[in-house]
């Protein structure tokens, strides 16, 4: 699918705030690596980030790399700009991705698809530099 790149000027105050629970995730993203919490007790990967495993409540959590790809299960296209910073950015597409069992999350599609993304379609995950020396995982059709 044809794609196009665009500026995505997220203001610093909307960027993820680092906490002891999420630091490994964002530190890995800054190195172009997607990691997910895995439970040492039951082996489950999970999302969102949590200080304990939602399966067995163990607090023994390690952040392991996962594949940099996923499948689109749904998507939306923002036509309305809700913030001044998105005025030059709309329309933009955010897709809901299944990555590995237990891990589903939305990601901005960047570069953006020219047409409608395909549900069930495969995406690759890359990393978009934003402020604060941070990077956001984003996805694009393959």
């Amino acid at each position: 699918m044809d794609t196009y790149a665009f500026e995505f000027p997220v203001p610093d105050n909307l960027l993820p705030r680092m906490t002891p629970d999420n630091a490994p995730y964002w530190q890995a993203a800054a190195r172009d690596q997607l990691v997910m919490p895995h439970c040492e007790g039951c082996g489950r990967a999970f999302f969102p980030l949590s200080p304990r495993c939602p399966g067995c409540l163990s607090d023994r959590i390690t952040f392991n790399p996962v594949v940099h790809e996923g499948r689109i299960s749904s998507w939306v296209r923002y036509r309305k700009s809700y913030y001044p910073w998105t005025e030059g950015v709309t329309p933009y597409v955010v897709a809901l991705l299944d990555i590995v069992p237990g891990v589903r999350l939305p990601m901005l599609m960047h570069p953006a698809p020219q047409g409608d993304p395909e549900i069930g379609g495969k995406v690759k995950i890359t990393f978009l530099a934003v402020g604060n020396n941070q990077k956001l995982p984003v996805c694009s059709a393959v």
Partner: protein
Amino acid sequence: MARHMAVISGAGCSAYAMKSGRTAAALIGDAIAAALDEAGLHKSEVDGLIVQGGLDYDMVGINFGLETRYSMQTWAHGRLTGPTILTAAAVIAAGMARHVLCVHGRSGVSRFGGTPSVEASREGGGAHGEVPYYGLTAPGSAAALSWRRYVDLYGADIDALRHVVAAQRHNATLNPNAVLRDKPLSEDDYLSERFIIEPLRRADFALPNDGAAAVIVSAPEAAPSGLPILGGQGMIGGRSEAVFARPGMELAYQDDPVGSWTYADPEAYRAAGITARDIHVVGIYDSFSPSVILDLERFGHCREGEGWRFVAEGRMAIGGDLPVNTSGGHVAESGLSGWNHVVELYRQLRGQAGARQVAGAQVGQFISPNGCTVILGAA
């Protein structure tokens, strides 16, 4: 009649307007006065209070001269409306109060999804799946993802929402207090509405208007002519739920796979001794129009995957098989976190709904998000 632990003795609301020029406190005062009048109660008889947004509980008591022995307030999200009523009923059953006033109001909310709130930046996303750094800023995000998912899972017409919106916009023309009382919208005109968060259009969203409502939940012996709460069930918390969706859609953090959800008579129906077919009028929390279709399925008013056909066949109309959102609902009457639906059901069951009255309405259902429902009977 089934045994019931509480009744709704009175319900009322303020005038609804896009920009009222009045404070939430003033609007809440109007709603409280209307509900007390309807219940035939003096404010000194109210001994319980639950506030669900608009004014803090302490100022409600201070401003309006209440002395309540049970006082509470909730997270200011509309999904707490059904749970607030059920909590009031439980408070009464536990003997902690006899008349619990439940109130909600708002003023000056011209739009949602703008100012980034602390809540939207929670770990794991906002209450509607907002992720501000991806530009996923508005509550409609979750509903838009849900509707696209539904269309894909069931092969539905993506424009089926036009049937919901047109029906409710028509109902609003029969309601002198509806914000959009003079603005019907045909199904064809719906299709030329602009997209806000595709696939949702402007007309699919709740109105960001000013208004307030009050509902008084009372002990049956203290309000013999109240409307009985025949049954109810609370809001589900956990990974099985995705707001504005159903279980088993693989949305948000749902672990349960597609196909794992099947309809079974809800506990609330069993408590009331009814089935879906015994319900005459329904109010569905419709901050986004897809909820109407999804919740009709969830509560057994049609089969899974067929809600979009149900609305396409005109069955939700006043005069149809099951009138839904007869006041116009959030999209056409008032975006009031479900409280306007409760007031409307109260009026329907009292025979006070005027031009939009559902003939023979004896059992009404309020459907609140995430699996919560309240079944009301006529007096």
